[in-house]
């Protein structure tokens, strides 16, 4: 069965998910996964849906673009190959990297560069910059999967050095500690 992935962007308001899913339902598509988030006032949603055999990607794309543009939403759609995720086959250890420090440009770029260089995958990122120098107002939380083969010490050292250069306090901790403390 063909699958499609649809991303929707636009100013947040009631009815966005309803509008998208209504079109999918009308076209006889089955929604398999949805994730949405709101950053400040903007909505972003990703839908994975399976299409019936008699529906072409072009036809679905046309109806989505047509109807969603009318309500001022940006849509991207592409077909999805059924394949194993690249990272799934690697044995990993989940860690959480947290930074706090005064807001300035290049913080995310500075930290993620090192994470990427070590082949570490970010699985969730929450960054809130309220601006100013109050460390607690400017926090980045990266949940990452560190492949078992990665030189943990080198990764640690590089992250700490970079954090220092960016005036950030950094913590690097195995994810289990947060689950142990907070969850029953």
């Amino acid at each position: 069965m063909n699958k499609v992935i649809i991303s929707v962007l636009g100013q947040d308001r009631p009815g966005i998910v309803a509008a998208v899913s209504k079109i999918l339902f009308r076209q006889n598509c089955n929604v398999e996964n949805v994730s949405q988030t709101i950053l400040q006032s903007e909505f972003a949603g990703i839908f994975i849906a399976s299409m019936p055999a008699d529906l072409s990607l072009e036809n679905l794309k046309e109806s989505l673009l047509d109807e969603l543009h009318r309500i001022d939403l940006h849509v991207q759609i592409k077909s999805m190959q059924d394949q194993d995720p690249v990272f799934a086959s690697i044995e990993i250890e989940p860690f959480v990297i947290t930074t706090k420090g005064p807001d300035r440009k290049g913080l995310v770029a500075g930290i993620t560069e090192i994470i990427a260089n070590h082949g570490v995958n970010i699985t969730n990122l929450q960054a809130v910059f309220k601006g100013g120098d109050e460390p607690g107002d400017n926090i980045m939380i990266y949940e990452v999967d560190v492949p078992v083969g990665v030189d943990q010490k080198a990764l640690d050292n590089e992250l700490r050095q970079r954090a220092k250069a960016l005036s950030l306090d950094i913590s690097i901790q195995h994810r289990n500690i947060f689950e142990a403390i907070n969850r029953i």
Partner: protein
Amino acid sequence: MLTDREIISTLEMLESENLDVRTVTLGINLLDCASHDVNKLKNKIQSRITHFAKHLVTVCDKIGQKYGIPVVNKRIAVSPMAVVGAALSSSQLIDVSKTLDAAAAQVNVDFIGGFSALVEKGIARGDRALIEAIPHALSATDRVCASVNVASTRAGINMDAVLLMGNAIKQAAELTAHRDGIACAKLCVFANIPQDIPFMAGAYLGIGEADAVINVGVSGPGVVKKAIDRALESNPNLDLGRISELIKKTAYKVTRVGELIGREVAENLNIRFGVVDLSLAPTPHVGDSVGEIFQSLGLLSIGVPGTTAALALLNDAVKKGGAFASSKVGGLSGAFIPVSEDLNISEAAREGYISLEKLEAITSVCSVGLDMVAIPGDTSEDTIAAIIADEMAIGVINNKTTAARLIPVPGKRAGDSAYFGGLLGQSTILPVNNAQGANHFIRLGGLIPAPIHSLTN
């Protein structure tokens, strides 16, 4: 996916509330090292300890770093030396204490406990030799800790042993007079001593334990205090039932940390995991104090009227939260009130809010007992023994652990300051009231019988 709240609150506990793992204590069974030949015994002890403990410190540090939680102390607890060295003389046992000290230094642990005897019902030859060896052993070594169990709910109180301990404490203080009697800080007298305490000076590996075991002592008085402060700030009318609930939840979190670290250390060392001791253990630092919790609960200071009730609430809530968090809870598991080791309690002693009598009273509702209490150097051994006997009676009758770690500071009087340094802290010397005259009672000796287990009122 974790929530940002979960992550940020955990980081706060670690960064500003002094949450740490206070100790990972490796228990090592030395019973089969026993020998008539002291050199053989020493060699066996040395190789046994270094074999089991050689990676202890590096593994603790590695795992501490992995989780961002420091393991502050790494310690060893061994089988009671009075049993292992039952065939030895007092001077040979002093020699053995130096071997323990050297082995502890070699594997870089902070303390080694187990220079211990269990004499609640009677004193065997080896026990007597060990008790006689204690003052010299503790003054000749840095890391060795001693404990003697002189009473239990099943056996009663061995008053002959209590008197011997009064003498041992006095001697230990004199032998380290130049350091305010610091040897006494490494000596605990117990009633109902548990077999799996990870904290010093009471840690030893019980006779019923395996070859090796990892026990963990958590800490976190600062976390409890901050949780109470935050809750009362957002709702000043919070009642004590709700505060107890809050302490339970906080103790749960602290205990989970200890269990996670302990299990992983045990797994890495390929040693069985024993227990988490969920005691609130303070240090002489601001924000890491049990005493401060009393102030957060609205008391002027620890020691004022209301203290016993507040401590009862605190201790019970900690136990309930901890017992829910882990099915492997043991050791002392309660709130400690070591006077010199807790900056706030030490301050209460200086300002006169807390007395020896009030300390004794509150030990009926908490672990452990009269802990790190500096008393005048001229306190007689009979008086020291009598204070111990009182403390033991509280434990024996109430079916709980109690202990006395008293330091008669040589050459100093009540109101003077005693300095022990490091985690042992410092304290104003508390007066021992009404201790004049001869104490014939304490010299009568014998056994105070075990208490009746019915008609409990």
